[in-house]
């Protein structure tokens, strides 16, 4: 597939003796948004951690823009355009809001400027000198995503960005991700919120027990949402 930005091929991962991922094969095309859907413990977070290089007990091929990255250190992968937003948001308490934004190097051709970020999130400008973790949970989530947009990442790895957010913030997040998408940023998104997932994403991989069990379009997810929710145990 020539237009694959991310090509994950037969990725397996372990925690000690226990196998967490079995032969995961996932593709994200240029500018595409793809979700990983599945119940807790299915291996979604482990998949993202393998992609960025934080989980080392793994085997398989990972190509970003045609380049093999599975053996690279995490910082090298990030510099090739991966923007990682962990499930706990990863905001530094000892860094100010602005320092949180400025910590990663800019890596892509089209990084968001501080001005653009502050225009989109006036609240971050107001609080830019405050310590990162003094922000509310929702604000921290926006900050974490703004941080990787400022990097100019080509592919965002988002680990459940809507978790714990109030509905109004979920709407803001949706608008933000759609804006990034219009700009051509690709995303691999872990999401339990199917309405949100189908609003921002193009395709969906269903994960169960560390394996990809199905690949669906947004249309199919909407049609089968009952069945999927049941599967996820929600």
């Amino acid at each position, binding site marked *: 597939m020539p237009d694959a930005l991310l090509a994950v091929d037969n990725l397996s991962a372990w925690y000690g003796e226990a196998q967490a991922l079995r032969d995961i094969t996932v593709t994200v095309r240029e500018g595409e948004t793809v979700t990983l859907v599945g119940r807790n413990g299915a291996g979604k977070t482990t998949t993202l951690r393998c992609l960025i290089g934080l989980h080392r007990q793994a085997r398989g091929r990972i190509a970003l823009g045609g380049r093999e990255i599975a053996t690279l250190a995490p*910082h090298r992968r990030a510099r090739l355009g991966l923007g*990682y937003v*962990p499930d706990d948001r990863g905001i*530094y*308490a000892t860094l100010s809001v602005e*320092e949180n934004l400025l*910590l*990663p*190097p800019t890596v892509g051709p089209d990084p968001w400027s501080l001005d653009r970020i502050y225009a989109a999130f006036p609240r971050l400008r107001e609080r830019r000198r405050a310590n990162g973790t003094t922000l509310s949970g929702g604000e921290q989530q926006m900050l974490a995503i703004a941080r990787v947009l400022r990097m100019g990442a080509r592919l965002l790895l988002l680990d459940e960005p809507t978790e714990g957010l109030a509905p109004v913030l979920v709407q803001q997040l949706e608008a933000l991700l759609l804006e990034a998408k219009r700009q051509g940023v690709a995303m691999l998104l872990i999401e339990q919120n199917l309405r949100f997932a189908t609003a921002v994403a193009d395709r969906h991989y269903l994960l169960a027990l560390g394996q990809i069990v199905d690949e669906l379009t947004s249309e199919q997810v909407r049609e089968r949402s009952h069945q999927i929710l049941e599967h996820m145990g929600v």
Partner: protein
Amino acid sequence: MNGTLIAIQVFDGLVKGSFYALLSLGLAVIFGMLRVVNFAHGAFYMLGAFGAWLLAQQWQVPFWAAIVLAPLGVGLLGMALERTLIRRLSHLDPLYNFLLTFGVALAVQDAMRLKYGIQGKPYMPPEQLRGVTDIGPAFYPTYRIFAIVFALAVCLLVWYLIERTRLGMIVRAATERPDLTRALGVNVDRWVTPVFGFGVALAALGGVIAAPVYQVTPVMGADIIIILFAVVVIGGLGSIAGAVVAGLLVGLIAAAGQIIEIGGFDLGRYENALIFVAMAIVLLARPAGLFGHAEAG
């Protein structure tokens, strides 16, 4: 007890405390970035003092040059230690590096003792700083006042570097979340050796400043390292501000112990015990130290 005695004790406490501050600052920076409790820190302090003394003995290098050259040399030595030994153990339990640096401290100390003997070597303050200065209630050695001011100025400079520069930001981020910082594209490992060298150089700088105050001996590092761990625990492991404040505090506690008598019972002989009582009290009230945060992740 009179005003003169109290003033002198307070200043003596501040002198001691500013050495503690300088050294525990280096320990804090190293611990933050490497998660290594550097037991060899006292040995590097001793090497700094010996460096100044040797430079003066062998090549008549003046104090003002030694204050730059000795920390630089000892800092490079520290970088070599990190590159050759500490790095090899960094993926193992932190206890291994604790034992390694403990061993290095013993080896360095005994090697120096074999070569130079146990007897203290006097090191004169620079000409400009000899004599005494009027501090109001008493006269006080000018050099010691310089030592306080200089050490605190260095602490302030380090604070500025860590809080206000890009490199400092990377050190803070790597201290808080090393893995996440890597995942955000920062080459954390590139800074490990320089940061270790920097922390070691601070210890050596403390040694150079201490040389004219105390005698230069191979065991001066072993004496200070035990106190330093009390300072670090009181301040909060890895906290920059905590290192400085706790350093000064412990210096003052030690000095106070020397003049306080309770019912004819002279506390001065129990100076070190007093420090550890203070440590125990802090641990009971605030287990993470005065400036510490409960460790995240």
